[in-house]
């Protein structure tokens, strides 16, 4: 069964970073987001963090924490679930 939060995160990634050549469903749950895989960089990661903080009411306090949270969509979903208020998460 697909995870609605993971699907939401994939849409958010494509929309926030203006990845016009990519469909959300093309992003694998375990694909590395930074570096290889999607080849996003640290600035992309930080831009995603801004969106995630607004969308889910979470707080990411450092660049090191950003990198860890954004290892993959699966990682990110777990991170969001662990930090966000229950009413902010699908």
């Amino acid at each position, binding site marked *: 069964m697909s995870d609605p939060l993971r699907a939401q995160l994939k849409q958010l990634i494509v929309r926030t970073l203006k990845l016009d050549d990519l469909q959300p469903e093309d992003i694998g749950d375990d694909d590395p987001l930074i570096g290889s895989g999607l080849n996003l960089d640290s600035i992309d990661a*930080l831009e995603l963090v801004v969106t995630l903080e607004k969308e889910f009411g979470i707080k990411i*306090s*450092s*660049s*090191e*924490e950003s990198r860890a949270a954004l290892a993959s969509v699966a990682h990110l979903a777990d991170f969001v679930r662990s930090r966000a208020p229950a009413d902010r998460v699908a």
Partner: protein
Amino acid sequence: MPSAPFSPPPIRLTATGCLTALGDAASTHAALLSHQRALQLHPVLGRDGGDSVPLALLPQRSLDETAPPNWLAHLDTLGAQIPAADWGSSRLPVFVTSSNFGVGSLYAFQRTRDPAHLASGTPFASVDRIRQHFGWGANVSILSHACVSAHLGLLLATRTLHAGLADRALVFTFDFVSPFVAGGFHALKILNSGFPAPYAARDTGSIGLGDGAAFAVLEHPDASPSAPNTFLLHAQSLYNEMHHFTANRADGSGFAACLEPVAAAARDQRLWIKGHGTGTLEAGRLEAETLAHLFPAAPLVSWKGSLGHTLGSCGLVELALAVESLRDGRVPGTIGSEPPFFRDNVAAEPFSTAAFDAVLLTSNAFGGAHAATLLNPD
């Protein structure tokens, strides 16, 4: 002495001074020797609140801009130290460098829609305010390259003097913190609730931001010295990695490319090093490792753990403090940092300059920009 590629011949430094949250160069130097930290927690967006982050603002200066800018009057104490001359005339050019210029005013305009802020919002408008405030002529060049800006001003002033186009040159730099720049670094997650600990091997990197302004007067070394107790900028080196906006090449080759020519120029000299050391982890590690490799006997200090990163002005603010250290005979240590460090070249405590011949001053910037200047007593 062999020269760095494209490094101009030596140039004489006859006067320098700075303004930080701890005062002028002498006051700042004394405060650093006593481990005083200028950084204090402020809301990142000023009156609009936000997370608390470490900033070092001039006394009684608010993060929120006024019209005219609230930093302008503060420059008077610095301006009073500049040797009197017809600065900005044909033979006495001024080189102004900054990273922020008047962006605080642009932010204030965006927030308040008060058009009075626009009179200082663009780089040329903010510099023209300063020019008129000090009564300089119109011969004012403006350079802006983030945190290596001041080094560029020194190098271009040097070339101008050596080309015979000037008798003396004034290099002036200013950078004042605003929600514009604090918000930006906070969004980059490196200006956070932690205080900077330059070169410390920690889990989380943190920087602070600080107000800074400084000046330097340069003249040709063959001219009769216009002042006593002068110094020489013996070598000046630049390099731009153009690898990534916010990251360096992982092998440290960018740092090495800038520093190796200066290492050659400094051969046989006993050096201490005023590094960049903002408190970030990866760049701090690469910097400390490269400096330890190229200058194994040189103690490394950074003062940004106290003053914060004064951005475009840092190269000249910290040059003024290095000169103060040479005159005083004592170098402040790396405030805010404790072992373990990335390498054992980091000096946490003050030390005497007696055992050293020269100081190497380095700065780094976005885009993998690097600058290094070798300073000797004249």
